[in-house]
């Protein structure tokens, strides 16, 4: 009994720490006047503490909570540590932005930590119920964050759209889960996988359930045709929230897809792979083509996200070729790239004015050669040009596709990435080839500058010495 309780606590200690951190941040927000810096420190130390309890202990151990609904294994530890790092990065990037705009700091940190809690629960879930709890915690926090600037009509519109569509998607997911439960009699992923073995009764019901579950997954990822919320939310939300939405929840979406499609529904993979390949190709196509037309950098990055999601989904179609590991690697690299890109957008924002038009990048090389170079690295990494990490991500996905005999999908993917190169190149061309006039000079706190440089240089470093992270990804999912 005692062992069970300890096992229980041990498995979800990071979540408990984050939950406690949320309470502390909220209380501090209420009782401390003008405690912006204190709140920042509290939120950061909450992340550090949670990362510490996640990282300590046996890295290879697999702990399954009593009842089998919650799991802690090398993969979850790896994903959680990465998410902590990403959220910390978001906090560093956002601090000055929140201060300049006089946004409510306590609420921002508390909601971010709430969203983080949802992500952690999703990563560790081993049953549909826990997965759904995590998903809703994350989503509700995000809806509120998008509407953070209460008086901004764009923000309110974005939040409303996100909320309505998100509620429908959640409903679809829940309905699909209930059908799967009806067919298999369980909500545990492992039991569902066992009950759906070929020849088992009720396959037709499971297929209907699958269709609804896929809608939920595609919505969370922002895959076409369930992508409509992505550009509006990225554009309408304050940039620090766009940064958050574009990064950490993608890790959750990866975990969601991995848990549901691979852990639970592998027995009917023939059925979901076809659907997923259509979603992936549509995302690559629509994302890359529509991004070309954008004038707003946040909107452009939204469509770029959609295109990257297409690539990540392709990984799930090449399970035999190591596609899952490739998708994991792609997700991590994508999150780093998105963080870098939004970091530069935040970096350019000055005096309470968002620099969210493409034209704001004009002549950046003259104003700040170093950060123009950082943005250049991020952009070429997004295109997938070596020696930057984005190339290895694309290469691994292609490699996995070819190994599982999907040469056509691989060829389509590379052709769309050539189309995609165009709009990333435009950023480089605006920064370097145009002189620009009238843009304000840029300034940012030291910690922001350092972290942004580290973020971009990490993409170069991971490209020059790719072995470590590639092997890590192969191992935690091995």
């Amino acid at each position, binding site marked *: 009994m005692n062992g069970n309780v300890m096992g229980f606590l041990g498995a979800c200690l990071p979540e408990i720490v984050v939950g406690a951190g949320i309470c502390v941040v909220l209380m501090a927000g209420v009782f401390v006047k003008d405690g912006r810096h204190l709140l920042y420190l509290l939120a950061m130390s909450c992340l550090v503490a949670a990362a510490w309890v996640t990282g300590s202990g046996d890295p290879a151990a697999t702990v399954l909570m009593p009842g089998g609904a919650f799991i802690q294994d090398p993969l979850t530890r790896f994903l959680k540590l990465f998410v902590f790092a990403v959220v910390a990065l978001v906090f560093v990037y956002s601090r000055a932005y929140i201060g300049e705009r006089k946004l409510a700091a306590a609420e921002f940190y508390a909601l971010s930590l709430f969203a983080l809690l949802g992500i952690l629960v999703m990563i560790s879930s081993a049953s549909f119920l826990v997965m759904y709890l995590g998903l809703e915690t994350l989503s509700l926090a995000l809806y509120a964050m998008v509407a953070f600037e209460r008086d901004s009509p764009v923000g309110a519109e974005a939040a409303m759209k996100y909320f309505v569509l998100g509620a429908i998607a959640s409903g679809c997911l829940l309905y699909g889960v209930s059908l799967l439960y009806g067919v298999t009699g369980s909500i545990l992923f492992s039991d569902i996988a066992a009950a759906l073995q070929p020849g088992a009764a009720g396959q037709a019901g499971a297929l209907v359930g699958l269709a609804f579950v896929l809608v939920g997954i595609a919505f969370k990822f922002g895959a076409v045709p369930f992508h409509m919320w992505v550009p509006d939310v990225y554009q309408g939300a304050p940039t620090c929230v766009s940064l958050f939405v574009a990064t950490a929840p993608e890790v959750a979406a990866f975990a969601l897809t991995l848990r549901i499609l691979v852990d639970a529904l592998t027995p009917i993979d023939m059925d979901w792979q076809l659907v997923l390949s259509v979603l992936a190709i549509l995302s690559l196509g629509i994302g890359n083509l529509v991004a070309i037309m954008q004038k707003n950098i946040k909107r452009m990055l939204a469509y770029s996200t959609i295109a990257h999601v297409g690539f990540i989904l392709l990984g799930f179609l090449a399970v035999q070729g190591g596609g899952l590991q490739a998708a994991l690697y792609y997700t991590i690299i994508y999150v780093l790239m998105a963080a870098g890109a939004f970091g530069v957008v935040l970096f350019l924002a000055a005096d309470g004015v968002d620099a969210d038009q493409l034209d704001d990048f004009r002549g950046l090389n003259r104003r700040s050669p170093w950060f123009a170079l950082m943005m250049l690295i991020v952009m*070429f990494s997004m295109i997938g040009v*070596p020696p930057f990490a984005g190339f290895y991500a694309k*290469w691994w996905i292609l*490699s996995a596709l070819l190994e599982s005999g999907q040469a056509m999908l*691989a060829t389509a993917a590379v*052709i769309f990435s050539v189309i995609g190169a*165009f709009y990333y190149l435009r950023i480089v*061309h605006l920064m*370097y*080839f145009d002189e620009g006039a009238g843009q304000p000079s840029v300034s940012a706190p030291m910690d922001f500058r350092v972290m942004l440089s580290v973020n971009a240089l990490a993409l170069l470093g991971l490209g020059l010495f790719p072995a470590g992270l590639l092997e890590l990804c192969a191992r935690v999912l091995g």
Partner: protein
Amino acid sequence: MGLLSLLIALPIGGGLLVLASSRGMKAGGFRADRWLALLASLATFVASLPLWTGFDRTTWHMQFVERQPWVPTFNVEYFLGVDGFSMPLILLTTFLTPLVIIAGWETVKLRPAQYFAAFLILEGLMIGVFAALDAFLFYVFWEAMLIPMFVIIGVWGGERRIYATVKFFLYTFLGSVLMLVALIYLYLQADSYSILDFHSLPLSLAEQVWIFLALLVAFAVKVPMWPVHTWLPDAHVEAPTGGSVILAAILLKVGGYGFIRFSLPVTPDAAGLLAPLMIALSLVAVVYIGLVALVQQDLKKLIAYSSVAHMGFVTLGIFLAWGILSRTGELPGVAMGITGGMVQMVSHGFVSGALFLCVGVLYDRMHTREIAAYGGVANTMPRFAAFMVLFAMANSGLPGTSGFVGEFLVILASYQASFWYAFLAATTLVLGAAYTLWMVKRVVFGPVTNERVAALRDLNAREFLVLGLVAAAVMLLGLWPAPLVDVLSASVDNLASHIIQSKL
């Protein structure tokens, strides 16, 4: 660190140093950046000389090999080495880069540190392309080259530079990604990214044809072959002088090098099957593009089209092999074609580079590339005119210049394959002479046509040095090509005997 690693690291490190040194530099003060850039490029050239002196000419095996695991999970290696094909191209790169830096010494006004740094980084990456023996590493260098070139054309180019550079990037990027798919496929078959393992990998004809076509897109765009050459005139015209020189002299060579390193040995049967197509495309480039060059009004465009025509000779020489084999069955003929292609590549590197440098000299003074704006330049710039005429002669293949050797070898080899190949290929001697000499006549000779030409100053010492060095190389290679042919011979013979063995 091995010699080849040093050759890659030295210019890249130098380039980063140049970037760093530009901070806080005052206008009009001592310009540390350009001296640093010159030093780095000269050091690279000096460091590359042991490649020539220490090269074993009797073997086709890779030399100066460095081999270390890079990504063990995927059998990717840091695997460098050179043979007779890559060594001359590396020397060409290290020889031309200092000249490009000297050529931009005073003429580059806009952010010169970034200009020099871009060329140095580009140099390191190009050496990496030629030295890489691991396909993955090769691809990394191959693609990374695009970034500095994109910036060079885009920042320091002419009026339509943005159109030109985006077109350049997208064309070459499209070719490259298809090559990536082919390389991954080869890796999955061979379980290794080593190019040497690819050479001995058995493949079915269908596999070979697909791989050949995927590689063809990548290499044909770079060469460039007709009909995917259309990015080249735009890129050349808009690029700054140094960019044009490097583009014509070295970047185009990676395409021909790719055919020799990948297409021929990895997919010999597909190459044999599609050789008539390749020869046809090459001859179209030679004849049709030669005619196109004839009507150009823009100096740089004319040289750009002439580059396409000359590179047609390279691909012609490389793909003649199967025609010769089916008619005479003789290996020396095959080897002659490939040798001709290689010599033509090196020679074209010097000659086209030199012509672009000449145009740069004129452009710096007159700020126009229109042929019609010139006339009678020889009267005011006699020394320049002497160089220009020499390079024009080399471009039209006059015996005694480097241009003659490669063209002659290829025409001779093509005669062994078919009379008509030789006939069509030989038209270049007429066409090449026509468009080059007519251009020289209109620009250099005749009476002085306008006041601006009358006010021209002749070459200064810096320009004289640059053109003089290239002129020496052109003459040397033309009068005494034996050292280059010696270096090539073992590798060429090995390639010839490799490709006649079917992989089926």
